[in-house]
């Protein structure tokens, strides 16, 4: 019984202390949101170049003022022709991972996002080379690579910015740096480009995305923007005590005990 009482008293003391501590700090209410984004560079590019149709969107949920969880999905229909071959690819991809906001809550105010996201990407696509030619001393050789369905796995780091332009709507961009982990292609017969990743002939690829985002607030949290500074008087007391330690008086006070040793 004594132990229980002791526990209750110490918990109450702790709560009282922590509440008085919180009152003395600067805090800010930050809205946590569900964000629904649509990538706009893909459709814009499609009007310029009808060979590439890329559609992508994402949903992210804020865990706190710094961290949010992102799930993105998209579709790509890609056609590419070079001097001696034609390449077709279409398929879907998903990306998932965290976004970290590195802006301080005082600056971001729940309206700005500046940070970096990390993603694992998975792509399922079908590719083919309908025509392939090569001319040499003996004449022209022709071939085609029939359609094949494959999977691609990659990792991505995506630094970027977003800013609220209207209430509940923001715009922003990310630069994507991707690393290919694995595809189930052979070493020789590889796709040159696949959804979500880009140039698959290389182990690393880059990308640029521009998003329009609908922000749906679902909760507000109180964030400490400035921690309580130690009171000046305590500091000066400490300093005085330190000084006293070095002062001759202090030494004098200590000396009897030293002598006792």
């Amino acid at each position: 019984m004594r132990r229980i009482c002791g526990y209750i008293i110490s918990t109450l003391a702790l709560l009282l202390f922590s509440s008085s501590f919180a009152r003395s700090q600067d805090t800010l209410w930050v809205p946590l949101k569900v964000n629904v984004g649509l990538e706009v560079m893909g459709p814009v590019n499609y009007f310029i170049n009808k060979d590439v149709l890329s559609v992508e969107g994402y949903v992210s949920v804020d865990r706190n003022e710094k961290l949010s969880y992102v799930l993105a999905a998209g579709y790509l229909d890609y056609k590419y022709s070079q001097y001696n071959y034609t390449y077709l690819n279409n398929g879907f991809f998903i990306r998932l991972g965290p976004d970290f906001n590195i802006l301080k809550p005082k600056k971001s105010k729940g309206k700005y996002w500046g940070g970096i996201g990390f993603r694992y990407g998975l792509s399922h696509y079908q590719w083919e080379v309908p025509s392939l030619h090569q001319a040499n001393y003996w004449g022209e050789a022709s071939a085609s690579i029939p359609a094949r369905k494959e999977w691609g796995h990659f990792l991505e780091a995506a630094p970027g910015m977003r800013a609220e332009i209207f209430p509940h709507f923001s715009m922003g961009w990310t630069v994507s740096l991707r690393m290919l982990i694995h595809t189930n292609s052979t070493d020789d017969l590889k796709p040159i480009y696949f959804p979500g990743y880009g140039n698959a002939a290389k182990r690393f690829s880059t990308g640029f995305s521009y998003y329009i985002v609908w922000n749906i607030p679902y909760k507000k949290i109180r964030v400490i923007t400035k921690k309580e500074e130690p009171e000046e008087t305590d500091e000066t007391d400490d300093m005085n005590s330190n000084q006293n330690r070095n002062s001759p008086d202090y030494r004098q006070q200590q000396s009897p005990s030293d002598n006792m040793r």
Partner: protein
Amino acid sequence: MSRLYKGILITIAAGCSIFLNSCSLKSCFDVTESKVNTGFYSKETGKAVPPDSLTLFGMNMDTSKIYNKVLAPETVQFPLYASDTSVKFIIKINGIDDTLEFRYSSYIHLISKECGYTWYYTLDTALHSFNIIDSLSFSKKTITTLSEENMRIYY
């Protein structure tokens, strides 16, 4: 706040440069044709000895020469044909004719997005006459676009 704007501007500039770089059309600067890289060696010493002169052309294609009286070539490259499984050459080393036939299989290989796909080959055998050529040996039977020695001609 000005630091924030500076950061935003720098990031925008970096983002745009990466984007523009990724969008720019690039040309192909790689080798796109796989050939049998061959060196010449002395049958007596086994050391590399370039012939005084060399002429090379395909069988029944003597009007179109690959090498025509080239002086002291250290290596020659035999082109193969992806639409066939064998090719025959006439090789004239120091004025003496020999025939050389390659038998092989081919497969498609991706070079890069810019250069596209090409054919790689796996050599099966090489048959030859013995007028000046003594023997052949293979260092690498997979014929790629890399500049590595595939075959040695001893004469």
